[in-house]
């Protein structure tokens, strides 16, 4: 099976996020990027499918942030081809519609039967990239998938969870785009020695795209850290004092009698 996996970069939330001088965007220079978690699961799912049924994996990514690290790691894990889409703006990550257009163009050339994408990202909780990509590719789309197994005659079985602990098992005729929430097992660990070896041996394929970039209808006016609401009361003093005040508050609020 020929599988394409799309990976994105998201800001690393362990590092402090700064707002840039415009006051309406993150200061990208201060941001450390890492692989979007669900994309990592999409890659893992692809590796598992390849291991169980053979095939080839092509990882597609837009050249932004620290994407090379992510791509070498993917190669070390077992991706066969790496396609990198050039992107010029260092200060602004591509918007989902823009990204979908670029990625769709690159994926068309790969001739993939199955396209796996993380179903959302923490900087794009709406999860529009995957369905937009399916639209551009004119392929069916199924999202929020937890696990994919190879199926009979050009299909896969996808698992989807619904609220109320209902699990659906679906047969998906290929080609198709699947939005992955979680792979059958958590993404594997790849040792540094393998990543370093991949750095030496992996060649990225550059794929220029000329996708028309729709102008956004939305403008960010202001971006800021949440302001403290002032409702918090800090308890100070000795342990006994703090405990006494805490007990008082709990009584006041009627939590305890």
């Amino acid at each position, binding site marked *: 099976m020929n599988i394409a996996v799309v990976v994105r970069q998201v800001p*690393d939330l*362990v*590092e*402090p996020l700064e707002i840039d001088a415009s006051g309406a965007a993150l200061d990208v220079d201060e941001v450390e990027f*890492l692989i979007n978690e669900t994309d990592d699961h999409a890659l893992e799912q692809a590796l598992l499918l390849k291991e169980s049924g053979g095939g080839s994996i092509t990882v597609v990514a837009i050249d932004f942030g620290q994407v090379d690290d992510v791509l070498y790691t993917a190669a070390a894990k077992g991706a066969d081809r790496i396609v990198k889409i050039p992107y010029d703006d260092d200060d602004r990550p591509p918007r989902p519609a823009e990204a979908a257009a670029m990625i769709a163009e690159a994926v068309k050339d790969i001739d993939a039967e199955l396209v796996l994408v993380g179903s959302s990202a923490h900087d794009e909780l709406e999860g529009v990239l995957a369905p937009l990509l399916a639209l551009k590719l004119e392929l069916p789309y199924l999202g929020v998938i937890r696990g994919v197994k190879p199926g009979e005659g050009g299909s896969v079985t996808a698992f989807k969870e619904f609220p109320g602990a209902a699990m659906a098992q679906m047969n998906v005729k290929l080609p198709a785009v699947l939005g992955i929430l979680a792979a059958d097992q*958590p993404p*594997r*660990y*790849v*040792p*540094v*020695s*393998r*990543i*370093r*070896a991949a750095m030496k041996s992996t060649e990225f394929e550059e794929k220029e795209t000329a996708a028309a970039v729709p102008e956004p209808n939305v403008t960010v006016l202001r971006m800021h850290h949440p302001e403290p609401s002032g409702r918090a009361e800090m308890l100070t003093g000795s342990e006994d004092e703090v405990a006494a005040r805490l007990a008082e508050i709990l009584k006041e609020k009627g939590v305890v009698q």
Partner: protein
Amino acid sequence: MPTEVTILGISGAVWLLLLLAICSAVFAWRMSALLRVLAMGRRENRLDHPVLRAWTFLKEVICQSRMLTGESIINWAHPAIFWGFCFFVIASALMFVGGIAAPWLWIPQVEEIPVLGTLVDLFAVIVLVGLIASSIRRYILTPPGLQRTMDATIVVLLIAALMVSFLLAEAGGYADEVWCHAPASVGMSENAEKSESCPRERGHGTQTFLPAGTATAYVMLAAGVSPEGVVNVGVTAWWVHVAILLTFLVYLPFSKHMHLIWAPFAVFFAELPAKGTLPAADDSGKEPSTQLGLFTWRMLLSGYACAECGRCERVCPAVESGSKLSPREILHDLKSLVLKDGIATLKGRKPDDDGREFIGGTVPAEAIWACTSCYACVDICPVRNEHVPIIVQMRRKLVDEGKVDAKLQETLMSLQRYGNSQGKSARKRFDWAKDLPGGLKDATKEPVDMLWFLGDYAAYHPSSARVSRLVALVFNQAGIDFGVLAKGEKSAGNDVRRIGEEGLFEMLAEQNMKALGKADFQRIVTTDPHTYHTLKHEYSRFGLETPVVHYSEVLDECLRTGKLSPKRSLEGKAVYHDPCYLGRYNGIYDPPRRVIDATGLERVEMPRNRENSFCCGAGGGKIWMEEEEGISERPAVSRIREALQIDGVTHFVVSCPKDLGMFEDAVKTVGAEDRLRIIDLGELVYEAIGMEEV
């Protein structure tokens, strides 16, 4: 000589030569096979430091130092048997040479050589006593982990038979010389008369003083054996003795007890001079053709050399806590692998291992991950087997296959990404010093005398970071010119190495070296023994040459030179916990003790102290893993209980940032936090020199 007989028309001497030749050939054939199996291991240079090796050999093999200071009974029984063995090597060599040469040339036998003969004679008895004592220990008292194998029994019986036959042969010689052929002038004339009928056993030399052999002759006589009978038994016993020796020669290299052959080599090729510096990973990129190729030849030799004595098992904190790990079993499994796979490969067969992987199969992954790398096993092993490098080698394979538990994986990813094990931003590494009066110097911006390499726990763990601040204040008070790598310090990688993630270790080391290269300093100090060990011994291959010291040494120095002086005497009774990487690994036992003494606390020792210290359970990356199922009691808890057994103990002093957190948790588990204060050495000094919280 008893070889001066004709058997089936052929001279006894020729028979002896023939037997010796056949048995030696079998021995040599088997030994060459075993050596070729060793050669399947990876290369590792163990011929460096020849003088130190020779010295270690003399001390530990010839003088049996590790046995003499070890467990009771065997601490004298083993040396006795071993030294007896050495004397008997001389005796046996003379026996064979003399026996073969007898028809033509008389070679003096050991019982004719004054002093030596007497010694050998006495050793026959001493060895017998030693065998009895060690058998009582093995079969009746049986310490945990000591194996009662068939092989061990056979070897004990063979050695005993050797001693008995030797004594009987001596008795025969005595009877021959004194009762059958004594000149009339010496007396015993009535025996001398029998000289015609008496078989002539020795006839050439004269026996020296052989108390045990002589006594054996008299016991036989008293038991009603005639002098001729004693002589005849002696001749037979001589041949029996020879037969057992030859059996031994053939049997030993096939036996599980082959440590008799290999242990001296294992000691000679021990890890010297520094302890616990792991061999680098194989970066040839080639997959070894057998599972043996994953290990170095010295690791494979450990299998041959293991005496299955179980000492390693008895000191292992993982074993005590009920883990699946047993260092002895690992060595035992390795021995089986070496013998089975190795010999099969030599014969050109596929190893018959039912497709079972050695690493993660025969040796379960849980066992491989349970090791805290405390080195107690290596330190106690009489043949200097190196369990930890073997375990790390197995971990390397598991890591290479991505087989790590979720918690460990998260930690490793954090180390890859942020350079620390705590999943924290590198920018927050020095947050603990934010409000430090005067701030911290950045050694990359201004030259300092001492570069303080923090390590992850001292930087990020809440309790330890608090102590880091106190230590900084104490350093300031002492007038120490110190600084840090404000940008660029990463985890030094000690535990990463022990996890088996060698590539990550190398990456961290390279990044640290880059940062260190930008700084100007004379020496490195750290509060973390793990960091201390790896910087001191494992960074030389990345080019680090500056001396590395532990803060306990610095504090000790400051207190002794008066740079710091206690303002008040602290009250209470303190125990000190030796961290594995400071004590056992690096032999630093006294400086922290002197520091405690200087604070005025009364210092007492826990039963397990200094080199016998008991690991807190955090090392070797254990602190980053999910807890193994079925653990009865964590090592740190057991250690706290040990401390609490001391009457009136108030302080439990640590000198390792990991220890602080481990024991703070453990003392809560035991519910003794109001009785026993876990306190870092730095905080102790801080209090003693009377600094107020700044």
